């Protein structure tokens, strides 16, 4: 019987799911996921985590506990240091496996390979994946084959994003499911810029994206932008950020501000998010100076109430519609 590998549905799951799934299946493992985030998962996470950690990390802890209860043979918690040359990820990813191991006892073996493209060389990360392959009795060549197939699938997934699908939609399409065709009578365009793990988890974000769509807004995320557009936006700053996802947030925000191709921008971040405290501050100030595109910040935490978010979204969309009419008159 093939061994099972558990992948927690949190943090960068929303960015790299196709790659990880393809690879593990390629080396003959059975992939098991944690449940979608629910109250129990979040509660377990909050209970077992450090109180000052951010909401996505607490949720992630809950997902790991959920997998532990599922009796998987391994849990995949990669140490993702860098996914782009000369860029880092937030500190929490750098120490994630160590952190989780310290928080939760009696875990099944953790696959904590290091994913690191800081020096822009694929070889390091390839070798890490080869190590994983060996755990499943695969040779170097077999593992490499799985790795290349995985990166191929990842690219396919990323091209779906660029077509204008959100990460969640792209995941569904990638898996071969049909999307429910939506009626496209949107009269607003809103950019929601945030880490995918903040807005793609429908439980912790309280379905912000769905809510906006129901209010008649077409939603754009930063993943939908081609990279050169993001870099174009980011180049307006004197020093590029050293975290690639924060760079994307800044770049996307500034791009939308410059092009004015959306009616409004909403930034969503988790309570106590360190990197976002820098990007939010900059974006908010620049948006305020330009006074061209309305900008709203939403902070989510484990105490966020749905009604509060709803009110703010409604007020924001009302304001955007009001703005539009003022222009027409």
């Amino acid at each position, binding site marked *: 019987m093939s061994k099972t590998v558990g992948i927690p549905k949190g943090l960068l799951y929303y960015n790299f799911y196709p790659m990880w799934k393809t690879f593990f299946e390629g080396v003959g493992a059975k992939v098991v996921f944690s449940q979608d985030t629910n109250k129990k998962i979040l509660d377990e996470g909050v209970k077992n985590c450090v109180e000052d950690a951010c909401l996505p990390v607490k949720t992630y802890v809950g997902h790991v506990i959920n997998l532990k209860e599922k009796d998987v043979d391994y849990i995949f918690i990669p140490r993702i240091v860098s996914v782009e040359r000369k860029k880092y990820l937030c500190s929490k990813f*750098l120490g994630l496996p160590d952190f989780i191991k310290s928080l939760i006892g009696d875990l099944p073996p953790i696959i904590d390979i290091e994913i690191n493209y800081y020096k822009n060389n694929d070889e390091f990360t390839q070798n890490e994946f080869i190590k994983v392959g060996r755990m499943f009795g695969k040779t170097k060549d077999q593992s490499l084959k799985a790795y290349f197939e995985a990166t191929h699938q990842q690219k396919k997934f990323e091209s779906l994003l660029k077509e204008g699908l959100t990460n969640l939609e792209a995941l569904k399409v990638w898996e071969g499911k049909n999307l429910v065709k939506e009626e496209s009578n949107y009269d607003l365009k809103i950019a929601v810029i945030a880490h995918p793990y903040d807005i793609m988890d429908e439980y912790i974000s309280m379905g912000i994206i769905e809510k906006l769509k129901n209010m008649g807004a077409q939603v754009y995320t930063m993943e939908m932008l081609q990279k050169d557009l993001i870099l174009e936006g980011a180049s307006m700053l004197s020093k590029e950020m050293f975290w690639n996802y924060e760079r994307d947030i800044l770049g996307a925000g500034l791009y939308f501000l410059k092009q004015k191709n959306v009616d409004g921008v909403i930034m969503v971040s988790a309570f106590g998010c*360190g*990197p976002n405290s820098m990007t939010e*501050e*900059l974006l908010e100030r620049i948006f305020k100076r330009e006074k061209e595109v309305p900008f709203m910040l939403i902070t989510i935490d484990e105490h966020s109430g749905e009604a509060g978010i709803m009110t703010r979204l409604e007020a924001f969309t009302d304001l955007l519609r009001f703005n539009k009419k003022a222009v027409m008159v």
Partner: protein
Amino acid sequence: MKITYPHMGSLNMILKTMFEGIGVEVIDPPPSTNKTLTLGVRNSHEFACLPFKINVGNFIEALDRGADTIIMLGGIGPCRFGYYGQVQREILKDLGYDFKMIIVDPPHGRLIDFLKELASYFPNVDGKTALKSFVFAVKKMIAADKLEKFLLKLRAHEDKPGVTTKIYEEYMKKLEKAQNGKEVDKIVSEAMKKIKENANVRRKIQLKVALVGEIYMLLEPFTNMDISKSLNELGVEVTKTEYLSDYLINSAFKLPQRMEFKKNARGYLERDIGGHGLNTVANTVKYAKLNYDGVIHILPFTCTPEIVAQGIIAKISRDYNIPVMSLVYDENTGQAGYQTRLEAFVDLLYRKRMEVIC
């Protein structure tokens, strides 16, 4: 050009010595007070960490006093400190200040690169004078750190409460004004002698506590509400794990200390995660092995590397059976609440030792 910089422990003394040595006018930011903090908090993002906010407060106060150039360090991550300057510049710009901000971005965090980069902003200064004033500044820094290390041990034994602190403050002022190396040596040895004369209390159970955590919090007595003084007054010898001079030596000769950190942290944290997360974990293991009675971990609210470390050192605490307490500081932290927690922690350490004796 009137230069200013943020406060960080004895850094202001050192930078002042250095810049005045090369003939640049310096405007010291006034000592950090609650007003500084309020100014910083009012103008910063709510989740920006405490050092960021106090920096902003320092800058505003110094600019109000007539400074026109700010010196700030940059970085390449993953700690957000590397982007401080960029954001702070925008904040101060929006407040309407007219100033120049020099952000020294060391490409690899090495001391020599830092000095080279810094020198490029002062083309009129000749290398020899600059080097001389730098060396003298470093000497002062080492002297100040030596004196503080001494203070943190001996103050726990003082006969008359409060006297040691007064002596220390008096001699630190003298040190700031010292003009040459000989004077520095004399000041330090005199201060040490005086402190020693006032330290004759001996206890049956002498507690030792290590302070680990984020460097700014450890270096700035204002931000940590002078935690080492509170502990000393409870009769506890304190070992602080971060000093500017250590930091400098560490960045000048990167390898040896980092190797030691990695070795100590093995099994708990396998790589540098930015900021001082690795140091915190490594130091906790180190002082647990040295049979210290307890470890106090101090960190600013929302500091990601330290939050990761906080989760990990809780496990070290269980594994080595050493009490560990994490104190998170932000602008709402109250002195009385923390004093209570410190007293309770010290009581617990006494109990633990008494159990061993009985």
